[in-house]
């Protein structure tokens, strides 16, 4: 899940007749389109959620980019390049979806760079070995899919449509990641060790991607009523654990949680909560890579300013010349 703990802006607003009619449209399964009336809270909440999602795609290039130059075969290098290219593309659709709500990409970047907007906590963890490219695809893309598949039915048209395309590519990434893990697990002792180490480090952070339990959250209730959020965090986390534990078994890896057991009665795996203190520290900026990730994005933006300025100046000059000639 690339959007965590998205606060709803709607909870404090007074409900008007227009709000009631709007909610009725959503309840009837209609899509809300950019130029139609929507409550201000709905619009602002969506900007926050789509923006956070877009930022996650863009920052998400960095931990993988860390291994593109060290990919061990030409095929893996090509796959990884294709994957980060897809991610940048997802960022682009999502920023475009946000633009339909009246916020520009540059404004969203400013909010990211100044720390006013977040990206998913998962990208504040380092990628230390090649097995992390497997673990990120398998677990991180796997967790993202859990959230994004239902979001294909979200109430806001442009967001729902962006998700359809994103989901197709994400499931391909997840299979690629799992394939890397499989190759490592069937490889040498060193490779198996790398694979286990990657799972050990990414398991907790992957569970945290869904956010803390929101059973009693008013924000979540409002967002679910608006169909901006489709499932509770616990529901999605459980689904992820249920799907992932057998996959880890298949790989011959141990999930780093001694309490994991199949609960016949519930029809689900029981598992331990991740370390939520760590999660809140990461959100506060104390994750292992928060500083580097934000710095890398800010540097890219600042160092690229002359290019963007030049492109604009060139476009203006061209238009001017055309006018003079015409």
């Amino acid at each position, binding site marked *: 899940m690339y959007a965590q703990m998205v606060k709803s802006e709607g909870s404090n607003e007074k409900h008007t007749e227009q709000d009631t009619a709007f909610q009725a449209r959503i309840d009837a399964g209609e899509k809300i389109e950019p130029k139609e009336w929507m409550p201000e809270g709905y619009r602002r909440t969506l900007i926050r959620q789509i923006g956070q999602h877009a930022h996650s795609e863009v920052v998400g290039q960095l931990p993988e980019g860390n291994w593109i130059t*060290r990919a*061990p075969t030409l095929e893996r290098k*090509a796959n990884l390049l294709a994957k980060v*290219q897809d991610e940048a593309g997802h960022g*682009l659709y999502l920023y475009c979806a946000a633009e339909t709500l009246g916020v520009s990409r540059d404004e969203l970047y400013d909010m990211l760079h100044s720390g006013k907007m977040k990206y998913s906590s998962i990208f504040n963890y380092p990628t230390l070995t090649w097995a992390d490219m497997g673990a990120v695809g398998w677990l991180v893309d796997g967790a993202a899919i859990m959230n994004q598949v239902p979001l294909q039915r979200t109430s806001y048209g442009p967001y729902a449509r962006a998700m359809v395309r994103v989901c197709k590519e994400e499931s391909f990434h997840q299979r690629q990641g799992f394939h890397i893990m499989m190759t490592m697990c069937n490889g040498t002792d060193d490779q198996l060790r790398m694979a286990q180490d990657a799972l050990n480090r990414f398991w907790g952070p992957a569970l945290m991607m869904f956010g803390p339990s929101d059973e009693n959250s008013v924000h979540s209730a409002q967002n679910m009523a608006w169909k901006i959020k489709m499932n509770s965090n616990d529901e999605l986390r459980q689904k992820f654990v249920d799907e992932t534990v057998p996959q880890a078994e298949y790989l011959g890896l141990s999930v780093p949680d001694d309490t994991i057991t199949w609960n016949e009665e519930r029809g689900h795996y029981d598992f331990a909560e991740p370390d939520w203190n760590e999660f809140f520290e990461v959100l506060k900026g104390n994750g292992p890579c928060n500083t580097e990730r934000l710095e*890398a994005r800010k540097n890219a933006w600042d*160092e690229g300013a002359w290019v963007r300025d030049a*492109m604009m100046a060139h476009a203006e000059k061209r238009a001017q010349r055309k006018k003079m000639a015409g």
Partner: protein
Amino acid sequence: MSALFQFLLRQGDNTLVLGHRVSEWCGAAPALEEDIALANTALDLIGQTQMWLGYAAEIEEAGRTADDLAFLRDAYDFRNLLLLETPNRNFGHTLLRQFLFDAYQVPLLASLESSTDQRIADIATKAGKEAQYHLERSQDTVIALGDGTEQSHTIMQDALNRLWSYTGEMFESDIVDEAMTANGIAPDPTSLRDVWNTTVDAALKLADLKAPEDNFAHKGGKNGRRHTEHLSHMLSTMQVLQRSYPGASW
């Protein structure tokens, strides 16, 4: 080392080394569209590398694969142009390097499409479409950045001054090229110069950039005699896993 094998290494090493350099931009481009375009260019080049080095490995008949050639040769066995191993430095430098190469690669691949070697003709046909697109983009970007602002113009002129002495190597002909030309496998590199000049002169004019008058050319990449210091650093990164864990499958 057969002439054909060397010729194929030259093609594959060019695309590998440039593809690697371009891939170093991941997540650091001036705009999201440029991130996508750079990753796409790198991806095309790595795909072309698989074809060139794959064929080279078959011709060699020594049981090596494309990956062995990419990841287990040292700098002195690489046969890429020196131009392509120069560091990225900045976005302008990267795109100008790309343009100077694309302007050579497009006519080269066009000519290779009628190679007497069918495999080479097939690779060239596929790679040619990608190279044409790379050229359009790098040319437009070089023109825009040269023409843009005073600052961008200065950056581009500096990049041109710095890269110019690495362009002459593309048109050097040696015994490998002679053998390829004699068998109708590939054109004589010197024959590509006129087209290249036309493309480059036209773009530089629109970009308001001036090529240095000194036409000195650094050589030693395509024959492997003397690479720059940059190549072995690149390889130490690129090859780290294959070198650290010999024999492992990935």
